């Protein structure tokens, strides 16, 4: 697939006059029956950002996106686009572009007609002529690198192609905000990887304020400039990917973003952690979250005092994930994970069942 290539060949500014807009949500509450999907959510998204709404299924992320789009009624609260209140405006007047998880292409229309749809339904006064429409549609199809498919029907395309057509269709009306609902959710892994990068490049070129929903933390970290973590209808944390990863606001975010080892501190565990080189005081918190790559391992010389036993390991490409059994003082043996580069692991020359010493570099503490 050609998705990884830079987008060149056309001057987008001649074709698209996208004016990027900021989004402000204040106190959005949405209930479905007795279920509270969103609970007093307030969020500000500056113009030009590429934001990921991240969370487990049922956390309200899709509902929030649909409320911004106007596809769902706001229960309580206001939606502001460029400081203008659009809460009561119909979806067809909001000027947003929406990309659906399952593409929602018009099955009875060719690719060309799909992309042209938004232009053809404009009121007669503002509707471009057919030649202008054709010119713009072909430019958009070239932007998504699929102009050669213009006379096909959606059923004849692959998933990745369909999603790019859906994106071109949404961009045709020059939306001030682009909303994508799990845009890569229905695609297979390799296509998904290509499209992520492609989306980031496209955003870089068009610079339209974009929000996408995902439950895949890797995807959110890789694509977005800002990540909003949601859980149970509330915002847990908002920040850049590195802020979220390095400074998780709470235990939920820490567990949800990346792998982590969780220690509930009792007497033995704190002793065990201290013997593994982690320096802390009791008031830092009751729960320690330790990332696998913050654990260093070394073959133990003194077998009796060793912190853990090597159980098994898995190759994750450049990294090795090492499964360790903690040698608990009270006889309990919890599993923990460490990660290190391939060659470093080879140099240690470890075998299954070896006793190892640990050095824990840092932990995140939560109460």
């Amino acid at each position, binding site marked *: 697939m050609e998705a990884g290539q830079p987008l060149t060949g056309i001057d987008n500014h001649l074709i698209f006059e996208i004016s990027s807009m900021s989004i402000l949500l204040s106190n959005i509450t949405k209930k479905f029956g007795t279920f509270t999907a969103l609970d007093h959510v307030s969020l500000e998204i500056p113009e030009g950002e590429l934001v990921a709404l991240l969370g487990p299924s049922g956390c309200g992320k899709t509902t929030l996106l649909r409320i911004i789009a106007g*596809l769902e009624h706001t229960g309580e609260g206001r939606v502001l686009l460029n400081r203008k209140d659009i809460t009561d405006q119909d979806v067809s007047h909001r000027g947003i572009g929406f990309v659906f998880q*399952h593409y929602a*292409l018009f099955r009875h229309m060719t690719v060309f007609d799909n992309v042209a749809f938004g232009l053809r339904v404009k009121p007669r006064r503002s509707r471009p002529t057919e030649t202008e429409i054709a010119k713009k549609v072909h430019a958009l199809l070239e932007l998504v690198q699929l102009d050669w498919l213009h006379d096909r029907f959606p059923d004849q395309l692959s998933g990745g192609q369909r999603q790019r057509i859906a994106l071109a269709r949404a961009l045709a009306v020059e939306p001030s905000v682009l909303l994508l609902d799990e845009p890569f959710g229905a695609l297979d892994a390799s296509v998904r990887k290509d499209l992520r990068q492609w989306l980031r490049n496209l955003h870089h070129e068009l610079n339209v304020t974009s929000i996408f929903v995902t439950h895949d933390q890797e995807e959110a970290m890789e694509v977005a400039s800002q990540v909003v973590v949601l859980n149970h209808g509330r915002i847990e944390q908002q920040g850049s990917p590195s802020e979220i990863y390095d400074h998780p606001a709470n235990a939920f975010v820490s567990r949800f973003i990346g792998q982590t080892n969780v220690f509930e501190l009792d007497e033995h565990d704190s002793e065990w952690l201290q013997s593994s080189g982690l320096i802390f005081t009791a008031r830092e918190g009751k729960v320690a979250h330790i990332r696998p790559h913050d654990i260093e391992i070394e073959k133990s010389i003194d077998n009796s005092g060793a912190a853990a036993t090597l159980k098994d390991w898995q190759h994750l490409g450049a990294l090795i994930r090492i499964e360790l059994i903690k040698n608990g003082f009270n006889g309990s043996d919890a599993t923990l994970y460490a990660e290190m580069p391939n060659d470093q692991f080879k140099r240690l020359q470890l075998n299954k069942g070896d006793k190892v010493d640990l050095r824990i570099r840092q932990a995140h503490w939560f109460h």
Partner: protein
Amino acid sequence: MAQSSVMPGFRPTLGFAAIYLSLVVLIPLSTLVFESFKLSWDDYLHIITNRRVLSTFRVSFSTALAAASIASVFGCIVAWVLVRYSFAGKRVLHALIDLPFALPTAVAGIVLATIFQPSGFLGKLLIDTFNLQVAYKPLGIVMALIFISIPFVVRTVEPVLLEFEPAMEEAGASLGASRRQIFTKIIFPNILPALLTGFALAFARGVGEYGSVIFIAGNIPYVSEIVPLLIVTKLEQFDVEGATAIALTMLIISFVLLLLINLLQLWVRKRSGQL
């Protein structure tokens, strides 16, 4: 086809289908054709160009066409209501739709005739308020045919509406389309092929319908006499040749019309990427 198919049983099932179609459809129909060969071409022409015969053809096909058109519109609306909304009594409505399938057509005919005759409940009302007589007119035939053909339209359109992705409508709305544009440009083109099938079924049923029509039609020659009735009349008079000639003509016209509808449907499907 047969070799490349993974599914077993191509030969026996095809064989069964061929035998079934021969016994039940082809042999009886070809008998009709052979029977009519006993007539000379001139005799045949003489029978079917008879003024009374021609008028029955006109009545039969025009009423069937009108009824199928009206039933298509009504059936679509009913299917829409059944699929899109939930309301009290929906199950009852579901059952009511299929009632014309199950009801002996003569019963339906007698009931319709009773209420629409000039002294009947609805018939009187229509004459008094609009000066409109339904019974014993082609209009009465159309009424009866709508009654029996609506289920065909509802039951063919319904599954397509059920399958229809609501996200397609939402996509249309997000692109700025009005409710009306969403219906005419997105929903309607998607149900059109099924609607044409429903129309064809309704039309075919209407052309051949006998039991529910004859009571309300009054069967006045040149006004409200239908082809099937004329065939029965001829048979009762032991005019087998006459009946055969009319039946064959009707068979040919029906076949051509259904072929045309199918071609139209093929064209629609091709144009909308469903082939």
